[in-house]
């Protein structure tokens, strides 16, 4: 019996979401009296910090590509080798690509997008958000084998100070029936991927035009935040689509979400209501977003933002 966690990496570096998944698996292993083995594709230096996050072993393979069937065979082979009864993924692209396949193959009960460690006091119960964040469900998993994907930015990382024993691993993966033809890179100002950002500065139609985004980017830079936008703004092309947060865009749960000139339609809130602290800046005191806000400023963005930038700059230099 063991817990296997798939740790996705980019050029040898594990993003925070992968470390969170490893830490989740390690804490669950400790609670249930077993061990945590991590699995990754592609070379890493040492254990890549996964030992710190609680993995006792790390299996490294050199699989390239993102074919879901090959990745599934890889995970199943590793699970068999480790006699793993619980398999953990981050609820990111890789998790969505592979975890459902693994669960279907094993006949395992699956919880997608867990937001807390399982409660094992009576059965095995995992909490997640449902109805686009408007409600919470506690899901009881009734099978011996279990698959869980962990929502990024929701469970934290507990550093254990350990090191993982690294081992190379290979399995018969069969043919790939999907191939990445090309990857087109779009500009990403600060290099902070939006789904993983702790701090997000977001703006909407209240900014009046794409030429006014300079102050948004400047505030984000001073805070070390990623930038985001509302749906209308990405639909009319003021901002790239990958910045669009909301029901049809991406869902984020940063520690801080600053919404400037966004009214707070229910579809937008669905994408951000997991944020720990929400700040709303809007000149309309009736904007529905204020109902979901922790802090509000009723005022003109073009007057308020320069004050925020100045204060953030002073805060940064005082530290």
């Amino acid at each position, binding site marked *: 019996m063991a817990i296997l966690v798939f740790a996705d990496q980019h050029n040898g570096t594990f993003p925070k979401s992968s470390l969170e998944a490893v830490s989740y698996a390690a804490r669950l292993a400790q609670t249930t009296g077993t061990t945590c083995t991590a699995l990754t594709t592609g070379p890493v230096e040492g254990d890549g910090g996964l030992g710190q996050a609680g993995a006792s072993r790390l299996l490294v393979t050199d699989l390239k590509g993102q074919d879901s069937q090959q990745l599934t065979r890889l995970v199943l082979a590793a699970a068999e080798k480790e006699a793993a009864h619980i398999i953990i993924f981050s609820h990111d*692209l890789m998790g969505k690509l592979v*975890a*459902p*396949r693994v*669960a279907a193959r094993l006949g395992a009960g699956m919880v997608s997008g867990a937001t807390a460690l399982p409660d094992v006091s009576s059965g095995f119960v995992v909490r997640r958000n449902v109805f686009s964040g408007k409600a919470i469900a506690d899901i009881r998993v009734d099978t011996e084998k279990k698959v869980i994907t962990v929502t990024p930015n929701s469970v934290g990382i507990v550093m254990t100070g350990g090191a993982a024993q690294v081992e190379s691993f290979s399995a018969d993966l069969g043919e790939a029936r999907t191939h990445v033809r090309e990857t087109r890179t779009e500009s990403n100002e600060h290099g902070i991927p939006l789904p993983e950002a702790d701090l997000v500065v977001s703006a909407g139609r209240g900014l009046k035009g794409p030429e006014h985004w300079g102050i948004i980017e400047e505030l984000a830079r001073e805070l070390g935040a990623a930038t985001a936008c509302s749906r209308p703004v990405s639909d009319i092309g003021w901002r790239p689509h990958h910045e669009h947060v909301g029901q049809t865009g991406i869902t984020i749960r940063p520690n801080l979400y600053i919404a400037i000139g966004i009214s707070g339609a229910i579809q937008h809130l669905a994408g951000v209501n997991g944020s720990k602290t929400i700040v709303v800046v809007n000149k309309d005191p009736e904007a529905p977003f204020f109902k979901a806000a922790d802090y509000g400023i009723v005022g003109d963005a073009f007057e308020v933002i320069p004050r925020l930038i100045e204060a953030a700059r002073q805060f940064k230099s005082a530290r």
Partner: protein
Amino acid sequence: MKILVCVSKAPDTTSRIAFNADQTAFDENGVQFIVNPYDEWYGLVRALELKETLGGTVTTISVGGADYEPVIRKALAIGADDAVRVDAPESDALYVASQIAAYARGKGFDIILCGKETISFNGSVVPGMVAELLDLPYVPLATKLDIDGQSAVLEREVSGGVEVIEAKLPVVISAAKGMAEQRIPNMRGIMAARTKPLETVAAADASVTTAIKAYSMPPAKGACRYIEPEQAGDLIRILHEEAKVI
């Protein structure tokens, strides 16, 4: 091109979310159900566009009770040729995926299209399970879908860019925003939908692996604390000292 589109129902975005007395089931009283937007706007409409250019058929499949009919008729009104309802409860993802796979097996569908998730359960799980049960390739979260010979060519947004993916047919795809634009059914479509075939099939044997122990509502937000616009700079200090987020 023979396409199967998975159609789920979902409560309208503005619905009040409430649960039954023992907090184990969604309270459907007074709730308006719609076709899950990801299934309708992106999956179904792109399937119809492909049929219009390449020929073929578009069949929808739903798993649920007889109350599914209005949602299925809406999908037919938008343009699907025929529909299937598996008469089975929407128990959990693996159970639902097993029903879809059992129906689709051996019927020669080139593409099985699902929305990227339902707006009620947000799992993003069923299409991947269908792919595994049918031993087909799977491309989730596609924002673009075209056909090139015996392959589907898809795009998907990844952090900081776009990937172009080629997948051999037959394939299972989950559709995200960008794949197509919403279509409003016209009167002719609505009239035609009344007489289009809606086949009901019995549930296949499959096990249920999870259950809802309890639903709950997220903790209520405290009141919004307002800061005067002239004192906007104070916000940074408050975020550091009180909210402790910077």
